[in-house]
């Protein structure tokens, strides 16, 4: 590729996607290929930001992988998580990360959180309406202009909706969402929110065969991420293991019954 120079009228501006289109970089896809998928990721608003917890399993006809990362930093204050086709989801994360950075370098300004959320809409629309590899992401982050955490969800056609409490994506959604509905309160601390979000993913892993719960045999645990005014931070492996071990021990003590209370 030579130097990508454009005439004034054809210049794609700071959008990386439009630049790729101008270059003719489009991808044609074979139809009907079965690719690994399924997930549970939750993003929950807290007083000081947002908390995301996501399982680590990729499922095809069998378990395809046990240590997939479905939550990534799109930039310092933004997390993006994926459900659906793993191949498209990974590509989707890459495209989002690159697009936000590209915009920042081209214009010397950072996109607003809402700007980032809206940018993903046509990306989802294009993918889901033209390929069989559906992707449903979520976007959550700390809005530095408004000084609070915000979470956004999408429908299959790319519609973008902000939620005031939490967002869940993936096949384990019914179980995770039930737990969140019962447990969510306004202005929870980060610590309380991590506790609730981890429990939600635990429930999903317990009930949904395509969601991986804590794996004590292989020492693999769902990932836990916080995004606050300090930016995107992933909890350490030990800390994550400790959280899930605590839930697991309570559940073992009760003989597998949730017991009515949130635990």
């Amino acid at each position: 590729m030579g130097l990508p120079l454009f005439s004034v009228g054809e210049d794609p501006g700071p959008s990386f996607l439009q630049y790729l289109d101008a270059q003719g970089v489009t991808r044609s896809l074979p139809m009907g290929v079965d690719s690994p998928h399924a997930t549970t990721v939750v993003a929950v608003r807290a007083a000081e930001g947002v908390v995301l917890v996501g399982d680590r399993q990729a499922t095809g006809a069998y378990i395809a992988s046990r240590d997939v990362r479905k939550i990534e930093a799109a930039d310092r204050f933004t997390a993006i998580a994926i459900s659906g086709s793993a191949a498209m989801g990974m590509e989707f994360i890459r495209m989002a990360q690159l697009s936000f950075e590209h915009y920042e370098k081209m214009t010397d300004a950072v996109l607003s959180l809402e700007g980032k959320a809206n940018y993903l809409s046509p990306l989802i629309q294009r993918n889901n309406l033209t390929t069989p590899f559906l992707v449903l992401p979520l976007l959550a982050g700390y809005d530095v202009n408004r000084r609070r955490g915000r979470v956004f969800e999408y429908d299959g056609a790319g519609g973008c909706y902000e939620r005031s409490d939490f967002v869940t994506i993936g096949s384990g959604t019914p179980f995770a969402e039930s737990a969140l509905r019962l447990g969510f309160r306004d202005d929870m601390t980060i610590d309380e929110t991590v506790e609730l979000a981890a429990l939600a993913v635990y429930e999903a892993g317990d009930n949904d065969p395509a969601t991986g719960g804590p794996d004590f045999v292989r020492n693999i645990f769902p990932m836990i991420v916080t995004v606050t005014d300090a930016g995107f931070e992933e909890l350490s492996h030990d800390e994550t293991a400790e959280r899930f071990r605590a839930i697991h021990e309570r559940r073992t003590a009760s003989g597998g019954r949730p017991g009515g209370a949130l635990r």
Partner: protein
Amino acid sequence: MSMPFYVSPEQLTKDRAEFAQKGIARGRSMVATTYDKGVLLVAENPSASLNKISEIYDRIAFAGVGKYNEFDRLREAGIRWADGTGYTYSREDVDARALANYYAQYLGSMFAEGPKPLEIEILIAQLGNELRPTKLYHLAYEGTITDEERFAVLGGDADTIKQRFVDADQGTSDLAGALHHAVSALSGPDRVIPAADLEVAILEDRGARRTFTRVSDADVAELLTH
């Protein structure tokens, strides 16, 4: 029927070079130098929003002097090239030398065949790692490319500034020392450039993937008082 005047290639090249040099000399100069932890870029720029220095990629910075619209277009092309290459292959495959060569070809073709030569000079700075060395690629208006290890000066006043830089050079120092040195070479003995008229950026490893950072006016003033 009128006949076009014959102009010898020597004369044509000389005229075009003179034209480009005059255009570049109208703007302010800039200095890039290595320091103990990275690369420092300092430009004299009274505008706080029209940047001469910019981030291209994780370890690559861009600086331009001369006509703003001309080098800014090349800056954008550089970012697109880098992001496109990193997306197609891998982030570690984005090499400043390749980009500098593309710029050289473009500047060269515009100088020889364009309606007018570009009135700009460009610097591509690369912060080294285990894969690649730290390099400053200096591109002149006619496409000449030179790679410097230690420092580079761009602009109409380059020779004088270069001489001042060499005369006071005490080898690699820390950031404050390098900034002092670069600014006094830019300003000369008879004037003081206020911090607000300096555009300063660095490429430095601080554990993150991206190494480019702008240094604020306040931090520049602070560093210069050391």
